[in-house]
């Protein structure tokens, strides 16, 4: 019940500060839309780079949103009270990550087809793209939570987070792109999706434990 009220609260906060989530999606779409200007409007070339562009920009968009995961609660004392509450801190982390994913990951998935069409990506690959993002973006939120928790209280935390988190994002990026590439080239997509699911399961276990340990440290 406690975990549910944390999710409900974070969703309510995100809903009342809609511009935050909207900025992330806007960043995602605008950054991706810059690529055709950079690499030229050749349709086949754009279709080839589409999966990579979508994944890299989605990853950067999630990175941008990580700061609001814990920082506001850390600064106003809410995090201390959550740490002292009967809800185990691990579940608190999981609840906050879930709310974070629902307010960044889901909107990004919804916006991805727009970019895919902009890049002339064949429509048959869209379901695989959505499925890969559905398995991959929760991992981005989970791993990002560790980085966000570790950098609380550090000066220039905003610069540190990418340094900590980006290397850990690479497996998700690789298999996320290769799943869509496989769909485009007519190869089986299942192995790639299974690998994405495997990474998700590992981070589902590691992130709450590591995140909670980092938050305890930050609260000292």
């Amino acid at each position, binding site marked *: *019940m*406690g975990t549910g*009220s*944390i999710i409900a*609260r974070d969703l*309510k*906060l995100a809903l*009342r*500060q809609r511009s935050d989530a909207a900025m992330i999606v806007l960043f995602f779409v605008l950054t991706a839309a810059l690529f055709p200007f950079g690499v030229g409007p050749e349709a086949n070339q754009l279709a080839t780079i589409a999966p990579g562009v979508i994944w890299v920009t989605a990853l950067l968009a999630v990175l941008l949103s990580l700061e609001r995961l814990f920082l506001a609660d850390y*600064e*106003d*004392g*809410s995090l*201390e*009270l*959550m*740490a*002292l*509450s*009967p*809800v*185990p801190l691990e579940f608190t982390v999981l609840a906050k990550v879930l709310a974070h994913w629902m307010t960044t990951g889901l909107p990004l998935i919804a916006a991805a087809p727009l970019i895919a069409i902009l890049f002339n990506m064949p429509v048959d690959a869209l379901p695989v793209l959505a499925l890969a993002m559905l398995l991959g973006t929760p991992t981005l939120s989970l791993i990002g939570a560790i980085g966000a928790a570790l950098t609380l209280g550090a000066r220039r935390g905003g610069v540190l987070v990418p340094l900590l988190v980006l290397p850990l994002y690479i497996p998700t990026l690789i298999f996320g792109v290769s799943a869509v590439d496989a769909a485009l080239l007519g190869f089986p997509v299942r192995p790639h999706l299974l690998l994405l699911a495997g990474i998700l399961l590992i981070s589902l276990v590691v992130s709450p434990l590591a995140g909670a340990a980092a938050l305890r440290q930050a*609260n*000292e």
Partner: protein
Amino acid sequence: MPAFEGQNLACTRAGRRIFAALEFTVPEGGALILLGANGSGKSSLLRMLAGLLAPAGGALHWDGKAVEDDPEAFQDNICYIGHGNAIKAVLTVHENLAFWSKLYPPTASEGLEELLDRALETFSLTSLRDVPGRQLSSGQSRRLALARLVTSPARIWLLDEPSVGLDDVSLKRLETAIAEQRAEGGIVIAATHTPLDIPDAGLLQLQNFAPPAFDPEMLENSW
């Protein structure tokens, strides 16, 4: 008789010893006021009692049992009001308080809504019920933070400068709330600079436990 005791407590922050060999006992229904200059470790001691900060030495006992044996069970007895008011700017007064009281499930027999109304009434926030947190003055924010005391089922209140920004009327209400908590056998430990009228409260001068200005051991460690 449940009592809250600290034995031989020591605190180190960033390699610097803040206090050492600190002892205190608060009996059931008792109160303890922490006194000391800025930086003497009042907040650190409260955070240590709340379980946010691990003691560098010593032990805490609650009800005859060592706290470190089961820290999570002990934390159910704690209501901690720190420096931060933990108020969200975009949530209303009622929503802010409702969230915290859901996170710390009250044991009271009355329903949640009645409890929240009573808590808001206690710190005269009823008229501000639907005002968003960002519009509160600093004193009103403090009162909203203190309203958590009423909804909390905790036996031990840890208050860090609870009276900052409060007007005279609110100060009286806080004193009444503290008296009621103690009458029910609760314990109140508060750090304060402003005079807070808590009858026959124990006083703990943190300066008495400060390490000597020249500490040969620290000097040795710094080589």
